[in-house]
């Protein structure tokens, strides 16, 4: 009985950690976007911004401030969104309001990891944000990874919206 309880509790507590995987650090991603990385700036979710963010995410945002890096028309955003249970960390490089690169930096879910591959993330390249706050390009889903696909799509929309908010 004791070993059964220990097994159940251990399985319960360690499951999320077994799947935690970081592919690229935040610093390495930022360094890949600029010749000399600029100092980070902070972007606050003001009372006017917050309802739009909530609409894009389809739930209240879990943060009030996010950092970004900017040099002329190029901005870099590192954002997180929950796929099913755990947050997926994604880096987005935007140049002149177009996505140049979108990369999964850390994936912690047990399923849906296919979204980390370039065959999926390359679909976001050159996307812009329409006036209805949707992506200019349609993104093909991956069966069995719907929630992860949705999370990455929301992050792409959010990064483009933040980028437009700082330099319309």
């Amino acid at each position: 009985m004791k070993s059964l309880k220990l097994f159940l509790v251990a399985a319960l507590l360690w499951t999320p950690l077994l799947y935690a995987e970081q592919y690229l650090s935040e610093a390495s991603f930022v360094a890949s976007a600029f010749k000399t990385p600029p100092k980070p700036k902070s972007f606050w979710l003001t009372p006017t911004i917050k309802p739009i963010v909530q609409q894009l995410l389809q739930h209240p945002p879990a943060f009030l401030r996010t950092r970004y890096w900017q040099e002329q028309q190029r901005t870099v955003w590192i954002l997180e969104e929950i796929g099913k249970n755990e947050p997926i960390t994604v880096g987005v490089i935007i140049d002149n309001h177009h996505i140049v690169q979108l990369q999964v930096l850390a994936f912690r879910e047990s399923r849906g990891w296919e979204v980390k591959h370039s065959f999926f993330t390359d679909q976001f390249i050159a996307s812009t944000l329409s006036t209805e706050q949707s992506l200019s390009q349609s993104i093909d889903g991956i069966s069995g990874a719907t929630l992860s696909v949705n999370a990455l799509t929301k992050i792409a929309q959010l990064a483009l919206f933040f980028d437009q908010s700082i330099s319309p």
Partner: protein
Amino acid sequence: MKNARKSPWRLLYKLHRYLGLAISVILILLAITGIALNHTDDWQLNSRYIKSPTVLNWYGLNRPSAIRSFKAGPHWISQLDQQSYFDTQALITNSPLLVGAIRTEAFFVLAFEKQLLLLSDNGTVIEKIPLEQAIHSIGVTEPDSVFIRLDSQIKVSHDGLLSWQSAPDSGIQWSQETALPEPLSDQIQQTHRQHIIPYERFLLDLHSGRLFGEVGVFIVDLSGILLILLTVSGCWIWIRHRIKSRFHNKRLY
């Protein structure tokens, strides 16, 4: 009459009947849990938690977990397992080890291994800041100057944790682990215990039989095999019955 009783077909009928009766309860349980698991998102089974003390005790969650706690201004920041709390308010799950917490004029800063968490005055998460190096402790001097002790150096931020510079170790009030007052500790233990096992997890363990250990898994596996036998015997009986009734009809006409 004696031959009919010993006939293999009669034996098959009996076997089919008793097999069905034997596994009926388990099949109903598997069907109910299976249907519920198919609607995990619709019924929010992964965000609603089991509160029954009997079930929680069955999982072995009847002992209090070790609490790490730090006092920051008038508030207590604590961590049980991987769940952190701002007084009794749950903050983030699956958080790394909490190493300290401080209060500046503008916000609270919680230091975890390789991560800082910025909170507003009412405990709302402002930002999660990942760091490349492990943090050993966090301290504060004048308002809005936050210090962190890394492996071989101390760094300070004067701009709301946006940038860091090296700093000497002088006059810094480092955050120290402090025992949580008992009433608060009891309240957090109770809250924590009731937010560990989501219904989805319980149903999965019930569906697979794991809730009852190896015996449970064996019974569910055996039920699966018996269900296959039941299907085969059912089809067999139906085919025999069909052939028999056709033959009987031919003889009539």
